[in-house]
C-alpha cells in the first residue's frame, strides 16, 4: 500500500479524470475457475462471445473464440451456454 496515494494526494472526492482507466484493473485475478477450450469441437457459433458478461472473449487470428484471461472472472456462463461442449471449467490451482 506504500505506493498508493495518501489522504492528501488522493483525488478530490475520488473523482476520476482519466476516462476508461478501469482497463488497467485486471479483474482476471478474481478467478477461481478457468474456462478451457477445445477448438476441435468449436463451430464458431459465437454464443460464448455473446453471453460473456465481461466482454472477455475475443476472436483470435484464426476466427476462433479465445478467452482474455486478464479480465475473465471465471463465472462459467460460456461453458454453460456453449451448445457443443467446447468449454470446460477447471480449478485454477490445477
Amino acid at each position: 500500500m506504500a505506493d498508493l496515494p495518501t489522504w492528501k494526494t488522493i483525488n478530490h472526492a475520488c473523482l476520476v479524470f482519466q476516462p476508461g482507466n478501469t482497463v488497467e484493473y485486471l479483474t482476471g485475478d478474481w478467478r477461481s475457475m478457468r474456462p478451457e477450450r477445445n477448438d476441435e469441437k468449436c463451430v464458431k457459433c459465437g454464443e460464448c462471445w455473446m453471453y460473456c458478461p465481461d466482454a472477455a472473449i475475443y476472436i483470435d487470428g484464426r476466427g476462433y473464440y479465445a478467452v482474455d484471461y486478464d479480465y475473465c472472472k471465471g463465472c462459467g456462463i460460456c461453458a454453460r451456454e456453449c451448445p457443443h461442449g467446447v468449454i470446460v471449467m477447471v480449478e485454477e490451482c490445477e
Partner: protein
Amino acid sequence: MAKRVGIEVSIACSEAVTLADVDAIAAYPITPQTHIVEHLSEQVAEGHLDAEYIKVESEHSAMSCCIGSAAAGARTFTATSSQGLALMSEMLYIASGLRLPIVMALATRTLSAPLTIWGDQSDIMSVRDCGWIVIFAETGQEVFDMTIQSFRIAEDERVLLPLMLCMDGFHLSHVIEPIEILDQEEVNSFLPPYDAKYRLDPHNVHSVGCFTMPEYFMEIKKQQDEALKDSYHVIREVWEGWEKGFGRSYKPIHLYRAEDAELIVLIAGAFAGTARLAVDRLREKGVRAGLASLKLWRPFPREDFLRDLGGAKVVTVVDRALSTGGAGGPIANELRAAFYHAGKRPDIVSFVAGLSGRDIMAEGFVEMMERSLDYSEKGEIPYYEMYGVRE
C-alpha cells in the same frame, strides 16, 4: 439599499435564495417547509428568478436531482423537513462524499411516530453524521443572512461541502418578523457567481461517484473529514466579512451575559430567544446566569465550547431531540465528550424538552437552570431528564 420589512421567515429565506441567483432548485413540499419552496416556484414562474425548478416525486429524488445539478456546476438549493429529510438521508451522505456544495434549508420538525407535524430537532439529529455543514438560525434575520452566507461557504474551493441551514419549524419558519432584506447589488458584492472548479463537462471529462476499493476508501474519508473540520476557518472568515459589510455579527456560539456567568444555558435555534428572558430573570434574582446560543453544529466547534463555557460552574443543555435509550440529549452528549479531557470542566446537566412543538416558557428555562444548580450542589447529576412530562 437594504429595506426593513415585516415578512414571514420562510418567505425571507426564499427571497435570499432568489437574491443568490441560484441555477437549480429541486424540492418536494412538506410541512413546515412548504412556504419556502412554494414561494420559490412562484419566483421562477413569474420570471423573478432564472432557475430550473425541478418538480420531483419524493425527497429522495429531490436530493438526487440536486446532486446531479451540483455535479454539473450549478448553484443548487433545496429545502425539506422531518420525514422528507429521513427519506433523503441516503443521498445526504452521497452529496457530502462527492463534495457537492448544495445548500438546503431545513425547517426542523419531529420524526414520526406518533404522527405529528410540529417542530423539534429530532430530524437534524438523526443525520448528524452525514458530513454536511450544519448551522442553526435563531431569528428571521439570521435565516435571511445565513441563507446568502451558506452559498459563499459551501462553494468556497477550500470547502466544497453541502450545507444545511436549520430553522425551527413553525416557531421560526412561520413567524413574521421585521427583517432587513438586502438589495441585489449588496448581495452581489458579497456573493460572486458560482464558478465550479469541478463540473461535468463533455469537453473536459471526469467521472463522479466511482466504485472505491478498501485500499482507497479510508483516505477519501479522512480527506472529507479534514475538509469539514477545516471549513470552520472559512465559516469564520465569511461571517467576519458579513459583519464588515452589513454590520451583523455571527459566531459559532453566540453569548449573552455569559462573560462572568457561573450558570449557562446552552440551546440551538429559536428557543434561545426565550432562554434570554430566563437569564434576565435569574440575574434579577442575583444568579450569575448566561446564555450560549449554538449556531454552528458541524463542524463541531470544540475550541469555542471549551473557551466560552469552560469558565462556568454549571451548564444546562436543553436539547429538542431525544437520543432514545441513549446517554443524554445529542448536544449535551457531545459537550460532555468535548470536556472529558479538559482540566477544568463544568457540570453538564442534560434536559430534553420542547419536543414536537411543546413550548418552553421563560419560567421553564428558569426551572431547568435552577434545578441544574441544585443537582450540581448535591453532586447528583442525572444522565438526562425529560422536562415538562406529566408524571
